[in-house]
């Protein structure tokens, strides 16, 4: 061991101007994103504030902002919830099909086909929903009313146009299917091969292997993917705006023509003809939507990230 151990600098070495500029630009962009997100929140709050503090008689409907936004929030949650109810099991089944049932060579192509669903603009889903899907739901909803009318959800009277919360939930389900599928598919693909082979070696059938090895491994991805889908469904605007015949009432009835509207659709339908305080009210309702989706998405990411840490996939 030599006597002199001089501490050397490795950090403070002179940096080239190119390096400094480049590092600053890329760090700045990252920070800018945080600023933008904070800006979204800040601008929405500043423009929403007049509506939240305004006297009741200035709000459309002559009541407080809470009373104005509540039925919309209810409709948003109701349609998104049923969309999720339909889409989640379907997405899990599709992810299973792509990862474990379809021939290996086809798997990528089939995944691409499902992703194509995500590429279709929402306005087109809306037009399709009105033109194709809604008329086809008229018969089945009538049947539901006659046979299951004792359940409040199917109380009726069944809509004659098919423009119901049920139809909206179906369209939303189709629209959020790809995002849930891709999250779940990703997790299923990462199932440790050893776990799968271990259960097969115990004499399990394919389904038993999936139940023992694949589903437990993908559980939090299913939860996270479903929450991401929920976030999408909550914020979906045009498909709902086109399909909806809003009446502003609060009811669990899925099949009647008197529907609660959703926050996003209400903004799209009302905004173009609005002025003055109404715009502030709409922005305030958008803020409510932003808050709800932010919570849902943060929850979803937390769930998915936790899985990532524990899976050892990295």
């Amino acid at each position, binding site marked *: 061991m030599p006597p002199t151990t001089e501490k050397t600098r490795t950090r403070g070495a002179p940096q080239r101007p190119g390096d400094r500029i480049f590092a600053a630009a890329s760090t700045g*962009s990252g920070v800018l994103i945080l600023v933008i997100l904070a800006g979204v929140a800040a601008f929405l709050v500043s423009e929403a504030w007049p509506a939240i503090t305004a006297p009741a008689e200035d709000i459309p409907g002559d009541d407080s902002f809470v009373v104005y936004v509540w039925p919309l929030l209810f409709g948003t949650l109701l349609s998104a919830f049923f969309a999720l109810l339909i889409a989640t099991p379907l997405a899990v089944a*599709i992810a299973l099909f792509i990862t474990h049932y379809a021939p290996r060579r086809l798997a990528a192509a089939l995944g691409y086909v499902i992703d194509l669903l995500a*590429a279709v603009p929402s306005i087109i889903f809306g037009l399709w929903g009105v033109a194709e899907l809604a008329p086809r739901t008229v018969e089945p909803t009538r049947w539901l009313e006659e046979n299951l009318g004792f359940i409040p959800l199917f109380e009726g009277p069944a809509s004659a146009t098919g423009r119901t919360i049920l139809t909206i939930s179906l369209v939303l389900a189709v629209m959020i299917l790809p995002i849930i599928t891709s999250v779940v598919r990703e997790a299923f693909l990462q199932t440790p091969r050893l776990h799968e082979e271990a259960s097969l070696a115990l*004499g399990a059938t394919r389904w038993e292997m999936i139940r023992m090895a694949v589903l437990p491994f993908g559980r939090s991805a299913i939860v996270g993917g479903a929450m991401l889908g929920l976030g999408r469904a909550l914020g979906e*605007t045009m498909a709902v705006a086109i399909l909806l015949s809003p009446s502003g009432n609060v009811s669990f009835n899925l099949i009647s023509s008197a529907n609660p509207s959703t926050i996003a659709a209400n903004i799209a339908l009302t905004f173009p003809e609005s002025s003055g305080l109404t*715009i502030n009210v709409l922005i305030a309702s958008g803020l409510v939507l932003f808050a709800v989706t932010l919570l849902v998405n943060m929850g979803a990411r937390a769930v998915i990230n936790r899985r990532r840490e524990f899976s050892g996939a990295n």
Partner: protein
Amino acid sequence: MSTTPTTSESREAGPVGPDKADLQPARLTHGSLPRRAAPGVLLAAAVLGAALWLLGVFGPVAATLLAAALYTAGLYLWSRSVEGARKAFDRFVTAMVTSAFLLALLPLVSVLFTVFDRGFERFDAEFFTYSMRNVVGEGGGVHHALFGTLIITGLATLIAVPIGMLTAIYLVEYGRGRLARYITFFVDVMTGIPSIVAGLFAVALFQLFLGPAARMGVMGAVALSVLMIPIVVRSTEEMLKLVPNELREASFALAVPKWRTIMKVVLPTAAAGIGSGVTLAIARVIGETAPLLVAVGMTTSDNFNPFDGRMATLSVFSYTQYASPGVPPVFSLDRAWAAALTLILIVMVLNLLARLIARFFAPKTR
């Protein structure tokens, strides 16, 4: 559909003890369905469904669903009686999972068919060369909206791509510690911002400076870029992570400074993937309607200046033609569908382009 049964796993294998010779040898085979059982049952169910449809008892969709149910139930019961409950349930799940996939294809096929079918009514030269200026009833077109969409999306790309790419570079090449973790998390969260909220953000932002009546193309571009940035960050980040660290080291060892290494080695190596990701991001936002509806509005004439007043866009055009049709409504609806068809074609071309970029600009090995 379903796989044919191969040699099944033994389940009745006896205990293996030291005096094996006294025991029956473990059976490795047991009752199994014939090789073509699954396709056979499917054929039978399909024939029955087709017959019921042709006889007019059911509609095509109901008949298909019925055939699928028949197939599932039939195969399950048959397998249960021959192969046992476990194998039968396995077949049942296979049929269910496959049906789920086919069920998801149904809306996709139906959407595409509907859009092409109805959109072709007005998919003609006039549609692309005329605007809606002074058009009442028949005629008119999307000349103004098509260019509006291209201009606004182009502007959004100009805003989103540099920010998104630089952020991805920060995350992969520089980012350490808390700031990087926050950015990663909030980029994820940002992917979930509802598009209408992005539109309202643009409105609220510009309202502060220009007053409440402001509607401009650039406002739409800002809204779209908010939606686009997280997609660009994510895809670029994935691609940069795929660049082997060895290449960075090779470049550093040649006395190349870090920023030149990133610009000249890392980015070119990932260029194909990044290009493909950016194209997909464009495809994702080009069909957005809600933010443009609130931030840009609609007009009937050509306006190609994004800093001066309302502009038309394809998606909003389609919506307004549908939502407020003239009398008779048919001309307006035809235009709405033709605009939808145009939009879906653009999206498909962009998706295809993304694939081609990924394929042809990938680093060559030969």
